[in-house]
């Protein structure tokens, strides 16, 4: 049986490779190996999820926006407000918060995606800034600049309390991330994801092929916002606190940084990037609270100049070189 190599290639990306279990094994091992770092661990997992949602938009959809924090923040405030005003059950609140963010994403995306380039960048940013101002001024509801306090999240399944060591929080976040990863992995390998990649490479041609470019992009925007909202809700539920910074330009910037460091459009860029960024922040900012940004900045510049694939791109490069040497022998 002879099939075209391109088809083989396409089909093989859908199959799970053994190496893809690595992040999950490591995350599970970390639970037992570093029980004192579980708090940090759940924050890393949340950033991974946030970066994963952004990868769908940036890496697969090719949409450059500086306002993805808007949907993270919307999810965080939705979950926070629900927990504060009596809806303590975490799972349903998580889903609802994701839907709130996703709905916001659909509405905002329907408007934003009509533009491109600088206007798109600015409109994306305007959404998050607008939400920032609203949250800042609606002090009665959101607590304003002091942040949202007084949340009470019920035990998970009525059983597992969110303990102070962060054990429940870590496992809860890990499982949600796993489900989101399955969803995104399925999506990007499905025809939908392939057409999204096509739109990124050549929108005019995809339009000519009869693909509704705007609608596909909007759906991607909605799903991405939904996942970002889930990440935000996880952050609210595990920290029992929401601050205004969830809508900040910094957070939108950080998620780009994480993704670029790890590698854009690779599904696993967020895993590597978030781990490196958060651990570096935790370790370096203790000694040099101001200066650790210098190293991140340097790393970003080096990534752009020499290695656009991010850290995962380095692995690719090494493994390819290794293979070539083997072939030569």
């Amino acid at each position, binding site marked *: 049986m002879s099939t075209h190599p391109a088809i083989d290639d396409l089909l093989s990306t859908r199959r799970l490779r053994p190496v893809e279990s690595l992040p999950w094994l490591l995350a599970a091992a970390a639970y037992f190996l570093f029980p004192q770092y579980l708090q940090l661990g759940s924050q890393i997992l949340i950033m991974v999820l946030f970066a994963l949602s952004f990868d769908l938009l940036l890496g697969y959809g090719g949409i450059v926006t500086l306002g993805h924090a808007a949907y993270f923040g919307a999810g965080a405030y939705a979950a926070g407000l629900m927990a504060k005003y009596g809806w303590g059950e975490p799972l349903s609140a998580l889903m609802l918060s994701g839907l709130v963010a996703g709905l916001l994403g659909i509405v905002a995306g329907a408007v934003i995606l009509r533009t491109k380039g600088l*206007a798109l*960048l600015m409109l994306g940013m305007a959404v998050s800034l607008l939400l920032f101002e609203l949250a800042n001024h609606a002090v009665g509801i959101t607590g304003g600049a002091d942040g949202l306090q007084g949340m009470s999240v019920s035990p998970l399944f009525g059983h597992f309390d969110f303990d102070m060591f962060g054990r429940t929080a870590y496992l809860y976040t890990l499982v949600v991330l796993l489900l989101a990863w399955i969803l995104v992995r399925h999506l990007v390998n499905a025809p939908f994801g392939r057409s999204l990649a096509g739109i990124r490479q050549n929108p005019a041609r995809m339009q000519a092929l009869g693909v509704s470019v705007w609608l596909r992009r909007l759906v991607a925007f909605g799903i991405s916002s939904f996942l970002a909202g889930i990440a935000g809700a996880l952050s609210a539920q595990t920290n029992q606190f929401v601050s205004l910074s969830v809508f900040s330009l910094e957070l939108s910037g950080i998620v780009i940084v994480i993704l670029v460091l790890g590698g854009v459009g690779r599904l696993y860029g967020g895993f590597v990037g978030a781990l490196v960024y958060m651990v570096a922040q935790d370790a370096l900012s203790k000694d040099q609270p101001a*200066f650790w*940004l210098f190293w991140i*900045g340097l790393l970003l*510049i080096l990534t752009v100049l020499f290695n656009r694939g991010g850290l995962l791109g380095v692995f690719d490069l090494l493994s390819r070189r290794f293979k070539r040497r083997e072939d030569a022998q």
Partner: protein
Amino acid sequence: MDAVNILVSIAFSGAAYAMVLYMTSVGLSVTMGLLGVANLAHGAFAMTGGYFLVTFMDRFAWPFGLAVALSCVAVGLLSLVLERTLYSRVYNGTELDQVVLSMGLIFIATAIAHVTFGAQPVRVVLPEAVNGQLLLGGFSFPTYRIFLIAAGLCVFALLWVTIEKTLVGARIRAAVDNRAMAEACGLNSKKLFAAVFALGSVLAALGGSLGAEVLAIEPEYALKHLVYFLIVVAVGGLGSVKGPFFAALLLGIGDSACKILAPEFGGIFIYVALFILLLIRPNGLFGRV
């Protein structure tokens, strides 16, 4: 009388603020329009100008005028180095590359400023001549703000004449309109690009150092004011000298009006206005379609 007072003070402080915004952002508009580089780190050049000014005045006790001029020169040279080593490599890169590169520069600039000058804003000691109050038609204005407005108008006039009336300006306009055609006619785009980039950074440094009184020089400067710089550029339209001027005026006066008349709503009006405006005119008020 009270209402008049409020209106005058809105117009006046808004105009001074607008001129600082204009001087800092117009370079970004030209570099983005001409080079197609989304240089988010433009504010970092303005901040660097401010820090140079403070260093020159405090360490070396140079007079204000000289210190401003030299800090502009210093930033111009620095930007030339960065243009050759970093920016020129992403001229043909994707938007993401440019955003990431300039974000890296913002981080580095912020970290260096933090370590060298501390987290607190640094203070610029203004010379006596411009540090007082001026009485005009029954109103009293801070002299320095009048100086700022005059400086902004001068920059606008000079830039306008340069772009519209000189050969260099004609080259820049040609390259903005159609780069390939301009190059085919023998334009040395490499030199022109470097010159324009340096000019933009010098203007940023001028805005940053002169405007230190309005936008305080602190490590978070580049990120904190990035939004407003970008608004001026996006609303004014890329590659234009006139557009950012009016956009800055709109934003500066609108911002002070909001702050004085409806402080509880703060930036909400500004962002809503921005949103609607960019939807109707995605290329800005004066942008070419």
